[in-house]
């Protein structure tokens, strides 16, 4: 297929606002009479608030009111509340005070007397699983996850623990969930090499640059919320629910979002605090979130303690895998990273037989949520160095051994509830490896592997990762106005990928209209937005090209019908050229787009949005109804065929110099390649590839949460102590490429991009460090300089293999 817009660069409408500072994020809004609020947060990892005495404090000058957990309805059991009487992590909000200034609110909070009863806490899932061991929550639940596994309780037996060496082997008692396919034992028996290792992957903060500040007020019966959200339409119903309102009673403005990486995917509990306060005091309330508060409320990746057993035949084929993941889920119900480990292993490495077991355990760590490649990227960090170990032992090329195991189009992933394995419409990971291999000059560089230059040793690494990347069933909504402009209504968010525009271009492509004649409507629920998925899970490129495609097809059909009605003949006699709908046999017989829009308004009914399809979502119904009569409406639900789980893949190649005296490394070169289907927006893709690679470097070698096990306090709050990569942690230049082969299940061949790029670079860096150390595998992320120096000096590591949340 040849495209006019798809695959071409363009200047997204919001990039100029970003470089000029005119882009408005949540904290940039002001409202008449706006006041401020501050939070009182828990100083303890787990406590019960027995009594709050705020009588005197609330009489202080400038103080306007307070809300506590009593003022906000609680959510479902296990889910994080907005305010709580049983804080389960340091930094959990207990109450909020509104005042004419932040200073006044702070002064008031200083005067509030709280009687806390300290409760038992834990930062180690294995402690909670031990019979009689301390639990993170006071409600009797110690396990649970966001979807499918309601909060419950699991304790392992003393015998489970007695079977293993404490801290060095995972006890592997009863899991919460498990699946298997093939004959695992029989396949292990056939293997030439088998490795069984305990592993730990640390938690790391999302560290969104924009703290999740929010401003809210009530006007004419509606609640206006300015918030920092990755998503727009998708976040509205849960936000309304948290406010006890109907979606149409909430105005959500989230036009810009200063980074989320999974942590702002949908409405989150603290964002309703200013709305409730505003309702109580009758003034607009701004809640500015500090960097420290963002550390607590802004989420972190789920950490793992696990055990992995993998076996390869002499040719390097993975025959069997057996993985057990214990997830450190933080204090409240969190994402299912532990499940994604099994999904990713089954798909990316295609073992003949496999067993997966998982158990998500609550601890007294701050909120955790999905973070870029939740689970898949941890698995990449665990698995890829083991693949290298096999390659080394079996004397195989490290790229070739990966290709031998990679999936192809139609390959199966993990088994679903019915036992059947999901299939992927397309998988071009082998092509990504080949492209990267050539661009990186792998064969030439491998000659330098292990080369010494004073204390510095060269290490070469390759890594790969995957993420499922797309959904179906959401709606598209377009309106062609009498002035000939096409308004593309998109309910997706603005995470910084520019895909709100990139995926809208498919509508312009179908209608052949100039991009300059298109207007993107987004970022504010008053702009009549359709029901769309959230901007998470690397799904936007796939899901939103489908919705815009079906809406554009609906509009195209209506243009032809109008032309046929007005000019005679049948709809199929007509075609469009981007300005006019014309008779194929006689192009002079035509109607301009603007005139067609006027005719649509005159005709009414389905043409101008007065009659709508029955299967679209109520949100889309309401938006299309509001637009009715203003132009030619294209609206449809994405009922295109679903032929399997669309899946994005990535490969990354890294050369480092490892300083054996300091344990520090320098990245000499980096090449990342995405298997993302058809490239929609080359420049945007390039930035996503590089950004993913940068975050992977942080995950592999810099970032981790540390908690003091004695007092339960976080040891590294903020950007300095848990530093994300900076300009100086990266190679001087980064290189990118894409396979650019279409996914057959998407009208333009698009599929996801963002998440696997992080796992690919993280695992490539771990493999490069391992390579520079002669093949040593740490089975832990991040790999820190002290670990490297200890290993090279033959000293024991200060932490046990399963120690978690440690320095």
């Amino acid at each position, binding site marked *: 297929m040849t495209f006019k817009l798809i695959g071409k*660069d363009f*200047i*997204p409408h*919001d*990039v*100029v606002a*970003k*470089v*000029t*500072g*005119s882009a408005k*994020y949540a904290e940039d809004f*002001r409202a008449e009479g*706006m006041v*401020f609020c*501050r939070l009182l947060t828990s100083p303890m990892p787990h406590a019960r608030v027995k009594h709050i005495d705020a009588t005197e404090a609330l009489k202080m*000058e*400038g103080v306007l009111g307070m809300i506590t957990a009593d003022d906000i309805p609680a959510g479902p059991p296990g889910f994080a509340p907005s305010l709580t009487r049983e804080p389960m992590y340091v930094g959990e909000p207990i109450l909020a005070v509104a005042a*004419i*200034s*932040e*200073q006044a609110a*702070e002064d008031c909070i200083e005067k509030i007397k709280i009687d806390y009863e300290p409760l038992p806490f834990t930062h180690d899932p294995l402690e909670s699983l031990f019979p009689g061991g301390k639990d993170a929550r006071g409600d009797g639940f110690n396990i649970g996850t966001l979807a499918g596994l309601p909060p419950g309780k699991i304790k392992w037996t003393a015998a489970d623990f007695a079977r293993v060496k404490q801290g060095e082997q995972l006890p592997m008692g009863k899991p919460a969930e498990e699946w298997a396919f093939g004959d695992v034992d029989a396949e292990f028996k056939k293997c030439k090499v088998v490795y069984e290792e305990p592993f730990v992957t640390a938690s790391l903060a999302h560290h*969104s*640059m*924009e*703290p999740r500040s929010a401003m809210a007020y009530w006007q004419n019966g509606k609640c206006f919320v300015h918030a920092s959200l990755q998503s727009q339409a998708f976040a509205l119903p849960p936000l309304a629910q948290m406010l006890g309102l109907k979606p149409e009673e909430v105005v959500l403005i989230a036009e*810009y*979002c*200063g*980074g989320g990486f999974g942590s702002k995917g949908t409405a989150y509990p603290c964002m309703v605090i200013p709305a409730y306060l505003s309702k109580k005091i009758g003034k607009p309330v*701004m809640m*500015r979130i*500090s*960097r*420290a*508060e963002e550390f607590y409320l802004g989420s972190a990746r789920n950490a793992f303690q696990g055990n992995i057993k993998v076996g390869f035949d002499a040719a390097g084929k993975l025959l069997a895998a057996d993985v057990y993941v214990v997830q450190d889920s933080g204090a409240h119900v969190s994402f299912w990273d532990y499940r994604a480990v099994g999904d990713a292993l089954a798909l990316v490495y295609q073992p003949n037989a496999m067993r997966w077991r998982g158990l998500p355990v609550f601890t007294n760590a701050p909120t955790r949520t999905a973070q870029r490649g939740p689970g898949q990227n941890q698995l990449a960090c665990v698995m890829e160095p083991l693949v290298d170990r096999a390659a080394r032992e079996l004397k195989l090329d490290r790229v070739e051994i990966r290709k031998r195991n990679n999936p192809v189009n139609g390959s199966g992933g993990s088994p679903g509830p019915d036992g059947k394995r999901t299939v992927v419409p397309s998988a071009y990971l082998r092509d990504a490896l080949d492209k990267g291999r050539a661009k990186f000059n792998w064969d030439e560089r491998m000659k330098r592997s292990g080369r010494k230059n004073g204390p510095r040793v060269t290490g070469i690494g390759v890594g790969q990762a995957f993420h499922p990347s797309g959904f179906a069933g959401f709606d598209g909504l377009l309106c062609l106005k009498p002035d000939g402009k096409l308004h593309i209504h998109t309910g997706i968010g603005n*995470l*910084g*990928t*520019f895909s709100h525009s990139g995926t809208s271009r498919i509508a312009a492509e179908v209608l052949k209209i100039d991009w300059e004649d298109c207007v993107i409507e987004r970022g504010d629920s008053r702009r009549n937005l359709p029901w769309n998925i959230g901007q998470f899970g690397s799904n936007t490129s796939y899901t939103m090209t489908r919705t815009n495609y079906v809406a554009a097809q609906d509009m195209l059909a209506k243009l032809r019908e109008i032309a046929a009605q007005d000019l005679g003949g049948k709809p199929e006699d007509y075609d469009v050229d981007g300005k006019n709908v014309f008779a194929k046999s006689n192009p002079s017989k035509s109607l301009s787009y603007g005139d067609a829009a006027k005719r649509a308004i005159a005709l009414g009914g389905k043409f101008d949005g007065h009659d709508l399809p029955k299967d679209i979502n109520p949100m889309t119904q309401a938006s299309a109804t509001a637009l009715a009569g203003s132009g030619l409406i294209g609206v449809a639900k994405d009922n295109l065929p679903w032929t399997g789980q669309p899946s994005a893949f990535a490969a990354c190649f890294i050369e480092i110099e490892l300083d054996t005296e300091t344990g520090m490394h320098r990245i000499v070169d980096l090449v990342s390649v995405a298997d993302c289907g058809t490239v929609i927006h080359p*420049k*945007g893709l390039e*930035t996503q590839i*590089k*950004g*993913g*690679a*940068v*975050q992977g470097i942080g995950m592999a070698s810099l970032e981790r949460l540390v908690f003091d096990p004695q007092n339960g306090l976080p040891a590294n709050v*903020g*950007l*300095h102590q848990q530093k*994300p*990569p*900076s*300009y*100086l942690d*990266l190679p*001087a230049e980064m290189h990118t490429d894409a396979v650019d082969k279409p996914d057959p299940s998407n009208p333009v061949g698009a599929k996801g991009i963002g998440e696997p790029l992080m796992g690919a670079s993280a695992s490539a860096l771990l493999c490069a460090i391992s390579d520079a150390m002669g093949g040593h595998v740490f089975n832990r992320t991040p790999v820190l300089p002290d670990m490297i120096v200890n290993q090279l000096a033959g000293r024991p590591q200060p932490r046990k293999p399963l120690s978690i949340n440690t320095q």
Partner: protein
Amino acid sequence: MSQPTADQFTGYSRREFIKRVIASGAAVSAAAYMYGGLTGCSRKGRAAGGVERLVSLNINGQVRRVDVLPNESLAMTLRYKLGLTGTKLGCDRGECGACTVVIDDIAYNSCSTLTHTVRARKVLTIEGLAGPNGELHPVQKAFVEELAPQCGFCTPGQVMSACALLKHNPRPTRDEARVAMSGNLCRCGAYDNYLNGVLRAAAAGGAA
């Protein structure tokens, strides 16, 4: 290669900043913003916040008269009293660089600069870069061409750091640019594109 630092030009370090805040009667808290909010919202005469004083500031070439608390940071004055919200607060403690502004041609973290210390100095914010008809500064133009921003929250700070760099070193090498920009964190990881932008702006005469 060494870029001029704030300390070199003013003899005014972060430690000095904290000392001055303490001297002005305010508590220093890492976890909390301790400022009065909007004009007229501070409680005059109270020890904690001190008393607002009317000062004249030179912001983006204009003289602006504004009531300022002794412990007020320039970022808060810009954002909450002068309506210049392009300057972002990412950490409010000099870790991230999102609040970078240029004062007398030097890049500063405006979250860690007391407003009353910039009287009689020229403050340039992101809003003051584009020309009168909206034509973008060469750095802004280059950042658009390189699609350098992703989420965009760190972008104003990145732009201002790049402007200060090019003022002093109109043709930096990639390594020089990387060091000069290294105080500006970007969680999206758009560093490579920002660097491409800085070099593109330099080639286009970005010191303007």
